[in-house]
Structure formats: structure tokens, C-alpha cells
């Protein structure tokens, strides 16, 4: 093997090792959020978590006057009740994904300090007449219905 071949081989080994180390290291240490099932399996009161799941349809309640927000995050197997004080982001709604930061309380609910809406990779135009959809949205907002705070 000539000098160039050795250089290539050595370089390849270093790059592969580096890539593997980053991948393995990040995989083990970075769990960005836990699922409701994982939290239910071993909940520690007072510990800070990031919890991710689907906002269960019918569970969302928002009181605009007191800014009290409550909903249930689910992953299909387990569900965790979440409470928060504040305004949720625009994309936050029932049946959509969300990630919340906060702590598990001994009272049996998750006290969230930050609500983040998870967005899907789908992009499409609004269905039907746009003005009509906007009108419906406005009506819903005026009524203060849950699902569109």
C-alpha cells in the first residue's frame, strides 16, 4: 500500500469513528422529550421534564381571563394531565403534537412552564373557500371555543 492509500484508510477510520462517537453519544444522552408512557413508568415529583405527545381531543380547556390552560397529553398508551398559566402558541390545538417543559407534581399533574406546538412536515393550501374558512375561524375565536384559543 502506498502513502496515499494509507492516508485515505487512516482518514476514513478517523471520520467513521468520529461520526459513530457523535451518533452514539447524542443518542444516549439527548432524549429531547419523554413520552407520557415513560413519565408514567417512573414519575419523580419536582423533577424537570420535557414531555411530548398528542393533545387529546376534548381535553383542552382555556380560561382567557385567568390564562389557566389545561389539557391532556397522550401517546396512545398513557395520558398525562398538564396545567399551564399563559397563552399557548397559535399552532397549539387538540389532535396535534405538543412538547411542554415543566415539572411533575405530587398532586398528579404536570405543571408546564413552556408550551411548544409541534408542527408536521405537511404543507398544503387551505381547503375550500379561503374567506369562508377565515370567517369560521373568526366566529370560533369570538366564542372562545376550546381548540382555538
Amino acid at each position, binding site marked *: 500500500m502506498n502513502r*496515499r492509500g494509507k*492516508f485515505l484508510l487512516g*482518514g476514513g477510520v*478517523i*471520520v467513521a469513528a*468520529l*461520526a459513530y462517537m*457523535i*451518533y452514539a453519544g*447524542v*443518542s444516549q444522552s*439527548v*432524549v*429531547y*422529550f419523554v413520552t407520557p408512557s415513560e413519565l408514567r413508568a417512573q414519575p419523580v415529583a419536582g423533577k424537570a421534564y420535557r414531555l*411530548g405527545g398528542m393533545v387529546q381531543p376534548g381535553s383542552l380547556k382555556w380560561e382567557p381571563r385567568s390564562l389557566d390552560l389545561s389539557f391532556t397529553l397522550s401517546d396512545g398508551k398513557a395520558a398525562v394531565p398538564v396545567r399551564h398559566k399563559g397563552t*399557548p*402558541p*397559535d*399552532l*397549539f390545538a387538540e389532535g396535534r403534537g405538543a*412538547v411542554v417543559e415543566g415539572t411533575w407534581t405530587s398532586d398528579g399533574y404536570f405543571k408546564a412552564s*413552556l*408550551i*411548544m*406546538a*409541534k*408542527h*408536521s*412536515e*405537511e*404543507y*398544503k*393550501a*387551505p*381547503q375550500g373557500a379561503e374567506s369562508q374558512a377565515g370567517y369560521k375561524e373568526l366566529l370560533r375565536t369570538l366564542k372562545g371555543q376550546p381548540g382555538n384559543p
Partner: protein
Amino acid sequence: MTRWLGWLAALGLLAGLAMGFGYAPKDAVQGNVQRIMYVHVPSILTAYAAFGLVLVASLGYLFTRRAGWDRLAHAAGEIGVVFTGLTLVSGSIWGKPTWGTWWTWDARLTSTAILFLVYVGYLLLRGMVEDLERGARYAAVVGILGAVNIPIVHFSVLWWRTLHQPPTILTPEKAPISSAIALALMVNWIAFTLLFAYFLGKRLALRRLEEEIRA
């Protein structure tokens, strides 16, 4: 040549602007905020291309030791940093109204920030070594190792749990994207690539002038 690239890029960006705001509909879920995508996605794709070019040019330099490869790697690295910065800023502006936060430390955002910092370091390293030939050699090594991060950034959303959504383009599966939005995105991508080529030509010319002055 470079001048023509500049006019083409300007034309492409105008077309992209018209497509992004006029032709493409607003997104059903996100509304008009989604249009930030026409800057955000072409920016990172151009950055990938730029850092890919750094990789190729760095290999070329190490094998041939021709200064031309080094110039190319340097120019591409600088422009890649600019486009990565643009990605981070536009993503942050998009993230606040959609996610509800400017920044979060998920794998996609963190790895992109690392990508930015690695190539900022790459440019700093070039400036720090007195001996030009040795500086070029060190930079080439960093330019090759840094490229390891490109697939990590792109596939982070598939490998780990993240807040950032999975990729819509450059994926094995069929993209769940309406054709008008995809077309507008494509036009902007081409425009950004032309802009990158224009910047590259300009930066290489500038570098040659710098070398003439130094000599």
C-alpha cells in the same frame, strides 16, 4: 461569467419572491408564516452544498497541494457560514409564532448550531496560522472532518426525538407537500444556488486580489 451569474441570481430571486408570495397559497395550518420556508430551506440546502464543496476542495488540496483548491474551500466555507446563519435566524423567526419559542435545544437545532460554530472555527483557524501553506493544510483537515456533521444535521429529525418536524424534501418517502408550494420552493432553491455560485465567483476574485497585494 460572474456578472451573468449575478443577473441570473437576481432574476431567480425576483421570480422566487413572486412565486413565494403570489403563486403559492398560504399553508392550511400555519397561514402566511409558512412562507419563511422559502428562505429557510433554500438557505440550509445551499449551506449543505457549500460545505460539501469545502469537503471536495479540501480533499483536492490535500492530494494535489494546488492553491486553487484551497481558495475554493476558503470561499465556499465563508459563504456556507453566511447561509447557515441565515438558516438559524429565519428558523428562529419562524419558530416563535409556530412553536411558541425562539430556540430550543433539540437535536436538529443543536446540530445546526454546531455546524455553524465548526465552520466559524474553520475560518478562524485560517486566520490564526502564520504560515499560509500550513494554515491551508490544517484548514483542509477541519474542512473534511466538519462535513461529518452535514448528514447528522439533515437526519437528526429522523434519528432522534425533536421539536423540529421531519424533512419534507430529500427524503426516501413521497413528500406530503402541495405541488404549488413545492414549485415555489424549487424556484427559490435554484435562485439561492445561483446566488451561491455568484458569491463564490466574487469571493475567489477577491482572494486572488488579496494574494496579489500580499505578493
